């Protein structure tokens, strides 16, 4: 009866291939999300408008201004007078004004000579956008500290993601989301569709074992997810320069486990839902929202209220995203995330056992 299993796989593939619209969405959404999160939506701050107020444009001042102007994060607005500062900030034309002390050059020399000094540069920052304010202050301090390097008392080294690229942060999150979407949602909808239309009844009266029907359904979705996985890995490596220093195979095997988990989750939903709409809703409410909110994809888990932190431990995506992030960006091998892998494996087995049991009970 191996023959009829293959026929089922073929049938499911035809269902998917003939449904061009869904197929297109499934293949394009991951790419769009990657590009969106990779380039457009980013927590990096670029092109901050910056103005300078200096009583005297000495060589020392020009030198500093030059460095600011050449920095990719800033665009130099121009020199303004002391009285204009408030007006320019309010109008929103500039976000930061750098104010130099009148005797800037002299004091710099003193500092170089080791004589303690009062502050010689003041940053006036528009605090209405917290993100821009925080980022620009940090960047400027970096640039300006270089000027008075002798004063630098500590040095920061950003490991793993020295350029603070937000793409690094989002890629694992997108992977966690996409596979749930494709595997869990689409399998559950396709199983429930057969129940709703009535074809499932005919299959149940036939000699085919129900388990076989379900597994045959999973295979094409598994293949699609696999293609998406390869696509995402290629995109993130070549387009977004995500390092993947932990080894592609580790990332791959953990992702395959996660695919399996998503499929079994879809199976579980299909045993609960009676209509396609219900299956979609359950997928959206029970799977998507927790992935978005509780997986650490967008909001760091450490920042969540304690009760949500506890809740997040039952969200599979949390463990997956965490592990993938470590492997992709920190470059740790698969062995180092054994805890996450074990949890994911246990969850997968649990989902499969429960859903198979429920599936068989249903027949009676």
């Amino acid at each position, binding site marked *: 009866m191996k023959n009829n299993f293959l026929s089922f796989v073929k049938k499911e593939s*035809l269902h998917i291939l003939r449904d061009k619209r869904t197929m297109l969405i499934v293949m394009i959404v991951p790419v769009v999300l990657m590009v969106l999160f990779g380039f457009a939506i980013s927590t990096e701050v670029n092109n901050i408008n910056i103005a300078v107020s200096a009583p005297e444009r000495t060589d020392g001042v020009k030198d500093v201004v030059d460095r600011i102007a050449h920095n990719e994060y800033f665009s130099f607005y121009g020199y303004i007078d002391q009285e204009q500062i408030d007006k320019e900030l309010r109008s929103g034309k500039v976000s930061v004004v750098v104010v130099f002390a009148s005797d800037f050059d002299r004091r710099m020399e003193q500092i170089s000579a080791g004589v303690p000094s009062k502050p010689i540069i003041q940053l006036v920052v528009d605090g209405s956008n917290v993100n821009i304010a925080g980022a620009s202050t940090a960047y400027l301090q970096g640039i300006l500290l270089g000027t008075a390097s002798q004063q630098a008392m500590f040095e920061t080294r950003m490991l793993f993601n020295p350029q603070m690229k937000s793409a690094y942060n989002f890629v694992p999150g997108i992977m966690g989301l996409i596979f749930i979407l494709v595997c869990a949602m689409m399998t559950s909808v396709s199983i429930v569709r057969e129940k709703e239309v009535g074809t499932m009844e005919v299959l*149940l009266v036939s000699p085919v074992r129900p388990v076989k029907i379900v597994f045959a359904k999973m295979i094409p979705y598994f293949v699609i997810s696999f293609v998406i996985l390869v696509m995402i890995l290629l995109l993130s490596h070549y387009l977004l320069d995500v390092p993947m220093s932990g080894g592609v195979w580790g990332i791959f095997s953990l992702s395959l486990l996660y695919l399996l988990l998503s499929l079994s989750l879809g199976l579980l939903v299909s045993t609960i839902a009676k209509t396609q709409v219900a299956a979609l809703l359950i997928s959206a409410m029970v799977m998507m929202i927790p992935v978005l909110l509780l997986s650490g994809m967008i909001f760091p888990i450490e920042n969540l209220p304690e009760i949500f932190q506890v809740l997040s431990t039952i969200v599979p995506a949390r463990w997956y995203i965490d592990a993938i992030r470590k492997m992709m960006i920190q470059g740790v091998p698969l062995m180092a995330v054994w805890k996450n892998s074990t949890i994911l494996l246990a969850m997968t087995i649990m989902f499969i056992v429960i859903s198979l049991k429920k599936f068989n009970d249903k027949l009676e």
Partner: protein
Amino acid sequence: MSEIVISVRDLTKCFGKFTAVNNISFDVYRGEIFGFLGANGAGKTTAMRMLCGLSYPTSGNGTVAGFDITREGEMIKRHIGYMSQRFSLYNDLTVGENINLFAAIYGLSKQNTRKHTAELLARLNFSSERDTLVGSLPLGWKQKLAFAIATVHRPEVVFLDEPTSGVDPIMRRQFWEMIYEAAEGGTTIFVTTHYMDEAEYCSRVSIMVDGEVRALDTPTRLKQQFTAESMDEVFRTLARDAERGE
């Protein structure tokens, strides 16, 4: 009459306190067209599900095609065909793909499938529609195709659950011709229907009321027994006493 294909004794099915099917007993013979009538909620579908091996009886026993319905459900499934009122083929597959799928489900070999498919398409005058998506066929054609596919593996018994509901009279007529043809070939037909004119076409008819079989005989003799003009009258006489509503 000849060999018994379906035999049911004291079959009962309860859902909690509700007795859907109450102690029914009957025999169906080979090559017969057995009409299984009853108002909605009379227990027809429940009884049929038990015969198809989809659900276990609470008590009583029965055999279908020589296999016990409580213990040999899987064997029964190999020897029966099934078609429900809900359209049960895949709309997004072509006629040929649907036939191949069901042939594979019933374990037909490649050569057999090819032979059966060609025969089946020729019989239905469908040969030119082989690569048409089933979804684009008219309903009557779909139902004929569904019946042909339900019998593609030459089952001993075919269960038809209101196969003609919603089909126009001409197509219904053609559909019944197919049923006759299959019955003449030795296939036993077990059919439920709401159309009383169709009940007249059956070899024998059983009428279920409130989970019990209240009448079982040939249409002619039932009409005599109830001194009725038509099966419709017989049915209404019996169904009048029903306690269960729609």
